[in-house]
């Protein structure tokens, strides 16, 4: 019954390798464009999950940091030249760091609240940042929008640099998620999600672990914002700080399964490709939104916990039955192997949060 050693790592490497090889199939521009947006949302859902999925805090303000990242990168390159075209990508870690530090400050305030109140405080933050982007005209040029340098990449392979950077960022985010789940940090976050007051009472550093993951989570989100801004070349406040981005991140994470490694990625793969493809297929009419909602409703009706946890609980039930049916003595008490770490948060009795 033991799982293959390093199965998780192998799965991860295969996945990243498959993603990285995709552009070499010479896909049409429109399909690689879909892939770029899908990857953006895969990274952002994974980042959202790192905080929202593991702690159970429903942050609706992540799009504010997406916008902060977009504008930070845009404003920097208003004053700095782009020659090779790769400079904006090299700036991304600093963008993430900057947004992460803002996240520490804002998180310290917002994390004094919980559950619904936290959702309202963070969505307010989103609108405050959007209003600032509209009105600090001297800095952001307001509703006129902000122009970024045009990426000097060859037209035939224009999307590839963006694509590869996003693959790398997704791999990094998933690695952070994986390591978090395997560490005492992940255990502490699970305790916070289960019963924060009790966790405080048994010495879990509740505020510290929440702040740390919030800051990392929004930092990664801001890096995606930076990539997006450079990809679009022209950014406006209403698109850079868009509630739909937050909602997308949250929906994809819920669809795939909160608190799991693969859930947010699978959620993004399904929802974002569905949305983009339907938008292409059904054209300018907004019928695609109905189809998009339909996909989401169906999955939520059939698997309310999300896709990955639903599958995992079936597997777990099967395994248990197999153990019970098997002849011979019951398995020893030390049977918790690597897969258990990954399925752990999946078999969740849904709490009030």
């Amino acid at each position: 019954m033991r799982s293959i050693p390093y199965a998780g790592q192998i799965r991860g490497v295969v996945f990243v390798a498959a993603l990285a090889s995709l552009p070499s199939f010479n896909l049409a521009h429109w399909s690689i464009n879909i892939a770029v947006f899908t990857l953006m949302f895969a990274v952002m859902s994974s980042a959202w999950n790192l905080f929202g999925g593991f702690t159970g805090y429903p942050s609706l303000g992540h799009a504010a940091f997406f916008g902060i990242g977009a504008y930070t990168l845009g404003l920097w390159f208003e004053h700095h030249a782009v020659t090779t075209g790769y400079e904006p990508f090299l700036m991304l870690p600093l963008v993430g760091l900057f947004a992460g530090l803002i996240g520490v400050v804002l998180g310290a305030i917002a994390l004094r609240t919980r559950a619904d109140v936290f959702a309202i405080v963070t969505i307010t933050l989103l609108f405050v940042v959007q209003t600032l982007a509209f009105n600090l005209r001297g800095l952001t040029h307001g509703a006129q929008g902000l122009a970024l340098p045009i990426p000097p990449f060859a037209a035939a392979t224009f999307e590839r640099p963006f694509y590869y950077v996003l693959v790398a960022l997704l791999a990094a985010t998933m690695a952070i998620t994986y390591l978090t789940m395997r560490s005492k940090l992940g255990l502490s976050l699970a305790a916070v999600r289960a019963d924060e007051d009790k966790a405080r009472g048994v010495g879990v550093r509740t505020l510290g672990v929440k702040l740390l993951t919030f800051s990392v989570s929004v930092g990664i989100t801001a890096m995606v914002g930076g990539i997006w801004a450079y990809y679009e070349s022209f950014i406006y406040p209403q698109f850079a700080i868009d509630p739909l981005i937050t909602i997308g991140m949250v929906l994809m994470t819920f669809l795939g399964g909160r608190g799991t490694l693969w859930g947010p990625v699978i959620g993004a793969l399904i929802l974002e490709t569905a949305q983009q493809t339907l938008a292409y297929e059904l054209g300018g009419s907004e019928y695609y939104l109905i189809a998009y909602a339909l996909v989401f409703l169906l999955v939520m009706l059939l698997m309310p916990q999300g896709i990955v946890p639903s599958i995992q609980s079936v597997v777990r039930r099967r395994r248990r039955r197999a153990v019970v049916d098997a002849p011979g003595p019951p398995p020893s008490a030390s049977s918790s192997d690597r897969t258990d770490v990954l399925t752990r948060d999946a078999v969740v009795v849904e709490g009030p949060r």
Partner: protein
Amino acid sequence: MAALLEVEGLAKTFGSLRAVDGASLAVEPHSITALIGPNGSGKTTLFNLITGYLSPDSGHVRFDGRDVTGANPGRLYRRGLSRTFQQARVFPQLTVQENLTVAAGYSWAQLFGRRMSAADRERVARLLEEFRMAHVADLFASELSYGQRKLLEFAAVLMSSPKLVLLDEPTAGVNPVMIATMEQHIRERHAAGVTFLIVEHDMPVVMRLCDPVVVLDQGREIFTGPPQAVQTNPLVLDAYLGA
């Protein structure tokens, strides 16, 4: 010998209700002190004030020679003062082993270590052996019976090697066998040097286990003394039966 825990004139008001109204008590090292009183007399609020879940309007708490009034519960826990809750509170989505591991009070550096190291497993295994719960080590806490959850919660707060443990009704809502088990574990740990302050409604348990007994009524202590004296004290009888 100085008291391990000293509570002095502690008060907490909720609106117009004086839940705790100038309560004072002392817990001597190596004692099992009982805290009893009628429903609504402020026992749980007093626990919340001592352990930092609530901050008092006035008064002081001293633990192990330091003023810890209003300190945060996590810091108190890592310093050796831990508590259980009236309704057993464990982390249902975590396994029994993890429930214990997470309660060991980690430093920042340790947070980046493995979720459960070999050392954790060993320590947890020993504790589960002591509580005869080794067979449920890999179950989720949500799969345990209520009595087992109470045991688990008690075992978990021992992970930090506390000096003082506050138990809020350790035997409430569990079967007689489990009461005896709980009592035995308290005795064993007491023999190993842990001090206890226990809120308890089961008088036979209090009589067997505790000395001294502190009686709380309307947010204030009205009696402190050996268990035998409690049963005959007129003030206590008044508080319970009404005058």
